[in-house]
């Protein structure tokens, strides 16, 4: 990249750093001190109460709490001091030196003015004899807590079980920085972009077997057979599906379909599905609103079961079809029907009898 472009980019980056990152941090620390001051004020109130009532032990305890808040305040003040008078002050010259260092370390690089990302390309990354290819690392120039560091595989060799995982520590193009998190973000805050890139590259070149998205032993080739996590049968990736409840990767035989609930698109395996005993509608654990029949004790969906409005017992349509009262339109079961009239419920029959006896009295 020619020097004119570098100067333009360095000027642009310099404008972004102090106003966005450092000012936000400054405000956060000032806010924390304000909270601590309020806490000190409350503790002072307790302290006065304890002294007035001669509570020696409680006074001592409150004094200790005050001491601990004071040390937190001191740390916050130190942080503000570091922002106001940083050990690494970021000047135009520093940024330009950083851009030159990036070029020396990684060769070609780019800058995205729109998204405010510096971009480099790594060498081929190979972990435990698995070739993962080159990655483009997108480094935000501002560490505002929302930005992510992206690593986009140029010629991806993703895990067989999940095509979003292009590296054991990269999912959906975002690097999980793990042990390097604080160092990377501090480098970005200080404008030490070449350090930040070096840290990211070193993370990509390191395999942590204790915490990968997918272990390298299970990486496989996308044409390889992988085993169903439900029944252990070996299948091709195209024949497999992820259960949204238990997260298991299951074969066609263990896949139970998609939840029948409106607006729910959860895929389910046979271990997590709940099915209506009559119509076979399937529901995921989130929308498992099936009702148990009080007679046959099987589970049914709303369309296949009804509840008696009088006694609240539920019956599937096979066990008992509920009648509808011609007086009150309530649904009622056999036990709640009028003894000599199956079209009227028990409650209406009692009311009718009371009305008749009232009329007789009159």
């Amino acid at each position, binding site marked *: 990249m020619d020097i004119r472009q570098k100067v333009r980019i360095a000027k642009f980056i310099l404008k972004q750093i102090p106003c966005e990152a450092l000012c936000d941090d400054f405000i956060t620390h000032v806010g924390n001190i304000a909270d601590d001051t309020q806490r000190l004020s409350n503790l002072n109130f307790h302290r006065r109460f304890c002294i007035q009532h001669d509570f020696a032990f409680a006074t001592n305890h409150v004094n200790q709490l005050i001491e601990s808040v004071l040390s937190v305040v001191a740390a916050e003040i130190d942080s503000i001091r570091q922002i106001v008078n940083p*050990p690494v002050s970021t000047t135009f010259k520093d940024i330009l030196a950083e851009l030159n260092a990036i070029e020396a370390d990684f060769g070609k690089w780019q800058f995205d003015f729109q998204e405010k990302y510096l971009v480099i390309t790594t060498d081929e990354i190979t972990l435990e004899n698995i070739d993962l290819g080159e990655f483009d690392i997108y480094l935000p120039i501002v560490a505002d807590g929302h930005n992510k560091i992206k690593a986009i595989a140029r010629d991806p060799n993703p895990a067989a079980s999940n095509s979003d995982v292009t590296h054991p520590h990269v999912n959906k193009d975002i690097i999980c920085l793990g042990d390097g998190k604080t160092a990377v973000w501090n480098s970005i805050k200080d404008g030490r972009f070449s350090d930040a890139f070096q840290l990211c590259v070193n993370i990509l070149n390191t395999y942590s077997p204790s915490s990968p998205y997918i272990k390298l032993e299970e990486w496989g080739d996308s044409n390889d057979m992988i085993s169903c996590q439900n029944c252990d049968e070996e299948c091709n990736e195209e024949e497999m599906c992820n259960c949204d409840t238990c997260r298991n990767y299951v074969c066609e035989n263990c896949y139970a379909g998609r939840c029948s609930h409106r607006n729910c698109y959860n895929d389910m395996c046979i271990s997590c599905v709940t099915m209506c005993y009559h119509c076979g509608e399937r529901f995921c654990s989130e929308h498992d609103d099936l009702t148990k029949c009080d007679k046959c004790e099987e589970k049914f969906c709303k369309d296949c079961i009804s509840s008696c409005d009088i006694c609240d017992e539920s019956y599937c349509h096979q066990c008992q079809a509920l009648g509808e009262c011609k007086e009150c339109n309530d649904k009622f079961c056999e036990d709640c029907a009028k003894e000599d009239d199956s079209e009227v419920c028990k409650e209406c029959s009692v009311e009718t009898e009371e009305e008749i006896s009232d009329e007789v009295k009159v």
Partner: protein
Amino acid sequence: MAKVLFINNDGGGFAQYVEIQPKTTVEQFFKDQMGEVNPSDYLIKVNREPVAANQVLKDKDRITVVPVKIEGAR
């Protein structure tokens, strides 16, 4: 006494000024600051450039240490 800026990217990645004796080499400085760790596990740069272990540090030098192995997570 010379004063150098030491940026340790192992852990927090904090920067601090350190006073050094005259004729302190990079190797000696690394040992003083990092203790008994293996220098080959780190990338050491002075003023953003790779250096030889016996290079003598001077006032206002900027020493950066980056671990070679950093464990990512999920």
